[in-house]
């Protein structure tokens, strides 16, 4: 699969995850979000940016419990919960937020 954006073509897998992670940029994120029916507010960017920072440091996506803990630390207790994440990304942080953030598709445990 693939999509066109600003004249450039981006390859994705069946689930819509970017194939080439380097191609990610904010426009791409906004485009994917839109496809997912998600409108990117500041709150959404907080999550996406955290995910990208974490990934660039540790080369892994954070476990959800760590994501929640860190969100709490950085943005306050009302943002540190699974419910809050699902509010922002109804299809879930793994499925949606990671996709928008341009991280490798979470695998394994299903």
């Amino acid at each position: 699969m693939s999509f066109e954006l600003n004249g450039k073509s981006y390859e994705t897998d069946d689930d819509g995850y970017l194939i080439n992670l380097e191609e990610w940029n904010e426009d791409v994120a906004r485009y994917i979000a839109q496809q997912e029916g998600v409108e990117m507010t500041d709150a959404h960017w907080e999550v996406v940016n955290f995910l990208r920072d974490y990934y660039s440091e540790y080369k892994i996506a954070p476990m959800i419990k760590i994501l929640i803990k860190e969100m709490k630390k950085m943005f306050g207790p009302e943002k540190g919960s699974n419910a809050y994440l699902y509010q922002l990304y109804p299809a879930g942080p793994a499925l949606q937020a990671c996709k928008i953030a341009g991280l490798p598709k979470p695998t394994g445990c299903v």
Partner: protein
Amino acid sequence: MATIERRTDIGPPHYDKFLHPIIKENYGKWKYHDTLRAGVLVHVGETGSIYTVRAASPRLISTNFIRLMTGLATKYADGYLRFTSRNNVEFLLGNKDNIDPLIKELSDNGVPVGGLNNSISNVVHTQGWVHCHSAATDASGLVKVVMDELYEYFVEMKLPHKLRIAVACCLNMCGAVHASDIAILGLHRTPPRIDHSTLPNLCEIPTTVASCPNNAIRPTSIEGKTTVKVDEDKCMYCGNCFTVCPAMPLADPLNDGVSIWVGGKISNARTEPMFTKLAIPFLPNNPPRWPEVTEAVKNIVEVYAKNAKPYERVGEWINRIGWPKFFDLTGIEFTKYHLDDFRYAGTTYRRSTQNRY
């Protein structure tokens, strides 16, 4: 922000509405049960009895099959049926007289009744080539050919005790392979082949490295990209790396195949639960009817049937006669592969002179 107005988190319906009235009345007050014939139980309660007819099912079933079952349930069982933890269908009859006609109609539709007590019940199994990316063999096909061979042991109760078979299509063992009387396990025999072109994009390197039970995976750099390499001498093809990293497939038609395991058990009856132990390290994948596998399994069943004592599960029987005799009686070859070399290997070494010659 997306708003969700749908019903969520309602959970499953209350079981209450699926219970036969006789069950409801006698809920928690059953006195005893009895086996009326192969596949047919009666449970005697304070105010009445419920009759169970247990029918086989391939588990991978279509809505056609299910409608056949619900139809029969409506006709004979007041519309009440259930499935067992081993995927059999159970009809719950209030009326004893419906037993025979129900069995007749099941039989007309090719569905046997049995699997109770000292018989072989349905095979717990997994997805195989029908649905899973991990499969080293097919599960549904193996079940079919094995149960064709062992059919008599399902419909009759002529074994020393219950005998439970499981099939899993890879080492994840989505089922009961590690604790079954006899287990059939699909496996790979060659290390993952790494696709270095996609790996850096598809996989988290630290997760991939951590996934290996034998520390065979190390990060490495190829053409400036971080990827991984596998120390093939340390790899025993478990496939855990593939689970977390799609760029490391193990499937290998030439070398994938099947192994046979024996002597596991779950219940706490008599002995503590026991793991299944290796009987045959490798048999070829030989679809559609895997003759080597069916023969091997049938052989073990028959040797067990002939030699075990009543109420002795396969593992208990082997513990009584000892492994040397098990290999003798079944004619299975003992090889170096039977010697454990994993984490707790030392606990399987014989630390005494007690032995049979």
